[in-house]
């Protein structure tokens, strides 16, 4: 097998193509080939959730997802969440307002999982939310304010719809 392979995919709404190392994880492809540095490396074996991105609307730990598998997929990272004029999304604003951010290293992954949860349009109980968010580890917050932020936006969006 050749060491490099051409892949095409959609990154934050834009079609892109690149020759990538077939051995590379999607984390490395996004960080090194596309400068998506919001994708963080905390364990590189799918334990911590810091590298989480949305692939065709579903959350994945990009560190255990091969870069070549991204071919033909629609991939979203935290960089893609800002509005056209640079405005924050409601969940980003809630993370700021609820003091859900400390060192910030787990934040991008958490926000992307929150996006998946919120885009489902469903109302979840606290217990369900805890389970849905439990793929991410955080050592700073005790998860308390992250729960507050996600719950707040979930309720806001349900009220609107």
């Amino acid at each position: 097998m050749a060491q490099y392979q051409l892949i095409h995919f959609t990154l934050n709404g834009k079609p892109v193509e690149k020759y990538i190392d077939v051995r590379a994880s999607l984390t490395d492809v996004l960080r090194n080939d596309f400068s998506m540095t919001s994708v963080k490396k905390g364990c590189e074996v799918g334990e911590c959730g810091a590298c989480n991105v949305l692939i065709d609307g579903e959350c994945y730990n990009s560190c255990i997802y091969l870069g070549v598998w991204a071919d033909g997929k629609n991939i979203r990272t935290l960089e893609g969440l800002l509005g056209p004029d640079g405005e924050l999304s409601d969940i980003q604003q809630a993370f700021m307002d609820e003091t859900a951010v400390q060192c910030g290293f787990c934040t991008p992954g958490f926000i992307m999982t929150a996006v998946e949860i919120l885009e489902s349009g469903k109302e979840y109980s606290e217990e369900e939310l805890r389970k849905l968010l439990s793929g991410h580890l955080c050592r700073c917050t005790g998860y308390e304010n992250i729960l507050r932020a996600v719950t707040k936006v979930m309720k806001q969006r349900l009220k609107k719809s």
Partner: protein
Amino acid sequence: MNNTGKSVTRVDAYDKVTGRTKYYEDLMPKDALYVRIKHSEIAHGYVRSIDTSAAEAIEGVVRVLTCFDVPDIPFATAGHPWSMDPSHQDTADRHLLNRHVRYYGDDVAVVIAENEVAAMQGVRALKVEYDELPFVLDVQEAMKEGAPQIQENSPGNLLKHTSAKGGNYEEAIKNPDLIKVEGWYETPTVQHCHIENHGCFAYEENGRIVCVASTQIPHIIRRVCGQALGRPWADIRIIKPYIGGGFGNKQDALYEPLCCWCTSMMGGRPVRIDCAREETFVSNRVRHAIRFHIVTWLTKDATIAARKVEVFSNQGAYASHGHSIAAKAMGSFAQHYPCPDFESDSYTVYTNRPAAGAMRGYGMPQASFADESNIDDCAKVLGMDPVDFRMKVIMPKDYKDNFSGNVNYFDSFRACLAKGRELFDYDRLYKEYSGQTGPLRRAVGVATFWYNTAVYPISLETSSNRMLLNLDGTVTTQCGETEIGQGADTAFAQMTAEILGLKSYRDVHVVSCQDTDITPTGLGAYASRQTYVAGFSIRQTGEQLREKILKHASERTGQPTDDIDIEEGNIVSLRDGNVLMSLGELAKIVQYDPVHSEHITAESTFTIRSNAYSFGCTFVDITVDIPMCKITVNRALNLHDCGNLINPALAEAQVHGGMSMGLGFGLSEQLLFDPKTGRVLNNNLLDYKLSTFMDHPRLEAEFIENPEPTSPFGTKALGEPPACSMAPAIRNAVLNATGVEVDMLPLNPHNLFRRFKESGLIGE
């Protein structure tokens, strides 16, 4: 007060929620060579030889360096301020790479390669031959005669032994009416688990080494790198960008010295060392496992007559922060529950475990577990409510510690306990839950702690600060105290705005990144010191800047300095309150003055010669499932008197994080060692049981704001305190639920099963 005491949004929040914040790896030069470390696969012995030929033959491998290549300079790694007194300096007991390997995971060689894969393959291809020696993992075993000798300069593996005494313990315990309550309490080796692993990169620029590192202590790291490489300290320039948590692990020189040495060996080419999670667990630092022996002698009317405490601290293979942790733990007892006659001894002992260093709480979570467990055992023997007993015997109001000079001005322990009791509905629950007999039992539990603020008088306390009035009237501020996730920058912005009379903390630009070439010399993030110590230098520097501003304003407006002031970013007349000019106008006029131009700036250092007691407690409500040996925490409340809050929302968030760390320490976390090899068995985030979202109850934080008299902003320690009292509160709730003392952390099913079985709660 306009700017402090307010829950404003963090200054770095926007960048963090947009993923723009740059950590060391996001700043990596594209051409950096990968340095991968070969870790020893034995727990103790000497490297006889390393065959590097196979590794060097791998395509992409540039160079292999081994323990036979490093300078023969032993160095100390602890993130302590340097002491000019040699007897107070840290123990220099490791080399950049070690021939005498002292734990399974020690550093013996590096492979430097053009890509990560080649570097990893190179490490696997190294053939290391060892002369193996017996090893020891347990403190008591390591203290025995004939135990393996780990460090050449510490006979009997004893790094240090210290004692503290008061009254006459031996005489006091002769009183036949006293009640003896004795216990052994033990805490495990745990790790910090910041989500960003430690890493760094280094290169040379104009003959000097630049190292960008994930560290809490850039100025200290510069000194350690200089010492380890045998170079003048200013040959090293350390840059600290944002870091993804530290919790004390990064209050140590980790791989910065090795990285600096590697670039120097590669002609200054950029090199990178990135710890994998598995390496972070083993080859960085861990929390000291400590075994306590406590004997408390009670009078029949429920006072503590005499107490003896022994502290056995497992240092692991290298000194790192060393005896400071055990000494701090030992020192806590006599102040927490003063009694007339006491004796205490602490021993810090080398073993062949990973090196233990600083970790959030610095010996106090361990001490609090032992002390607070024993106090509940005492209450049980006396048949007293544990809160009532504490109210009777805990540190009295106006208690003064003559060493630190700290005073319990406000009777804070009792205030916290009283408020917690009410908020938690403790008295009702304690009664309601008593006398349960079923397999599922609920109970409440309580524990307290105290904590110092900063390190005076044990070590130097100093803070330097620089401020610049910008041409738009905003102020740029810089200090050596570091943002590591806790929110320090935001507190500094609020304090600067407060001192100068600016409209908002948003008018202050905090230079978050520390660069030892530029940043005023400071010590960094540790000892819950930053808001307290930086407060002194921010106030002093702010006053100097204010004086300069008012002098210039007086010259430009013709008003005497006594008649003008700065309010909301404007120069105002104190006589009629009119705005005379804005700070921006003043700065521009002065800067662009064709005759006498000046940029208005101030810089100063403050040597802090005080300390402050921080206090608090934890209340928990738990369910114990006896057959399953499982604890569920239903509710948890922490109360703190940490003085005034600069930012209540950030303070609350700090408390949540500390409670969370305490929860893991109490219930699930421990590094496991293979007794046959000394290898850590669970050095990953799957097998090491870090608490997840689902393991947490709602976390509640409450404060009693008694302004600290010694502090410029009335603040005192908050960073570490919240991690101190959770584990013993849970342990005490288990005691209340079951009558069983579980004196070994974590309170996981293994330890609960052993104790429930011994106590007959679970049958054969």
